[in-house]
């Protein structure tokens, strides 16, 4: 298992952002769904080794990120796209991807080809030498995705990756996700259920810091059948039904 989490928590003062999450994930595309404030980003940031857990057990790529040496090794093999990734406006797209490839400690001789491959993967070839300040929001997001995949990560963490992408780019991005999921663990945090339905092999739904559903997209769809839950698509109805059940159970408790 590339991701092995047991009873993980994270507090910010009095706020419990993540409340006892347990999760295992191997190769494939794993969707992390949930409303705003559910704890998705905090969970993803702990998996990205950016945020230390308050308690619980976290193992990534078979290592404990709490120690310096293993954490460094995890980070070499990790790709991360934060929700709010800023950009260095004076860098070109290729320079931006190269900068992070070098800081991921890729062998310098492999970097130019890896940068070219990553930029081609996200369809930014014609903008590789354009300054980031001249690119649109969707292009910047693709540059962010390119830096995340440049080291061919074994664990790829993407926070709202399709934000800002147009429908055509989103379709192409889902295909890229499926391709990457053949050999790596790809965890995608999103609130767009159609992304999950199209690309993910597994899905977890978070609410109030807890995982309230874990299964396949088909199983999530099945949860919504016959419940009269709100939603235009089967996955949306499953999402609404699971959330409603979880919240009513929490209210009773």
């Amino acid at each position, binding site marked *: 298992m590339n991701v092995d989490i047991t009873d993980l928590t994270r507090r910010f003062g009095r706020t419990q952002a993540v409340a006892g999450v347990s999760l295992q994930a191997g190769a494939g595309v794993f969707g992390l769904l949930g409303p705003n404030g559910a*704890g998705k980003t*905090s969970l993803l940031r702990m998996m990205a080794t950016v*945020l230390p857990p308050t308690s619980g057990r976290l193992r990534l790529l078979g290592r404990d990120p709490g120690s310096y040496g293993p954490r460094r090794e995890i980070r*070499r093999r990790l790709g991360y796209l934060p929700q709010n990734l*800023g950009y260095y406006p004076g860098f070109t797209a290729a320079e931006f991807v190269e900068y992070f490839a070098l800081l*991921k400690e890729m062998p310098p001789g492999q970097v130019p080809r890896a940068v070219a491959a990553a930029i*081609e993967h996200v369809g930014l070839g014609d903008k590789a030498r354009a300054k980031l300040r001249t690119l649109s929001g969707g292009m910047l997001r693709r540059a962010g995705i390119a830096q995340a995949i440049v080291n061919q990560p074994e664990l790829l963490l993407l926070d709202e990756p399709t934000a800002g992408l147009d429908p055509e780019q989103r379709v*192409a991005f889902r295909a890229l996700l499926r391709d990457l999921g053949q050999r790596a663990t790809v965890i995608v945090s999103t609130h767009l259920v159609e992304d999950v339905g199209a690309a993910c092999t597994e899905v977890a739904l978070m609410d109030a810091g807890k995982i309230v559903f874990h299964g396949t997209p088909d199983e999530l769809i099945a949860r919504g059948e016959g419940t009269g839950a709100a939603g235009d698509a089967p996955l949306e109805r499953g999402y609404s039904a699971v959330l409603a059940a979880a919240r009513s159970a929490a209210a009773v408790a």
Partner: protein
Amino acid sequence: MSGMDAGRPPGATAPWDTGPPDVDLGRVWTGVAAQVWRRDPGRVERLAGRLLRSAGLARALVATPSLLLAWIIATVVVLFTGAVATVATGTPYVALLAPAVAAAGIAYAYGPGIDPAWELSQSLAVSDRMVLLVRALAVFGLNAALGLAASAMSGAAAALTFGWLVPMTTACALALAVATVTRSAIVGVAAGVAGWVITVLSGAAASGQLTTAVTSAALILPYLAFAACCGAVVLYATRIPRGTS
């Protein structure tokens, strides 16, 4: 998003489409793109890469001034602190505390509030503390070079350059060298600070100023207040932003 056609020059696909079936055209194109887009590191970056044993740190070093807003803020803090430290030569504690203020300013300038890719930098294999150390060296080193040029025209610039920028560049270089050898930014910073403290105290002792500055009861409260402010700035600069969802 597969994008394989996006970067090809118009018409360039035609000969490849008729190539032999065992040629991986995607791979060929990636090789061509890699050659076209590759950035050749300059002499300074190549030398820094060898000295620091890290191409990533070398890139961070030379790219530091290009993060313009952070660079300007860091430079203003460094020059202002240096001006105070250079003017207040009768009070060694100012010189002793000045590097902490400058370091806090640089940490803030390249911290979460200003560096747009700060969160991503926290997930990278190269230690963010090492990156901060090379950025401090870049800020002091380039300002020292500019100061040397300005010294030819101004006595005040010479005082700032030789009393602050050049010594601090040396202290940063010492810290980075030790950090590189020991593979620990904390050990490196400790070595740099130790070097600076020895230099300041030996100078103060030689001129008979040391005892007054250390034993004056009236200065205890200002010392504590100043230390608390520096601590607060460092905590703010290195804070972990709260998760947004």
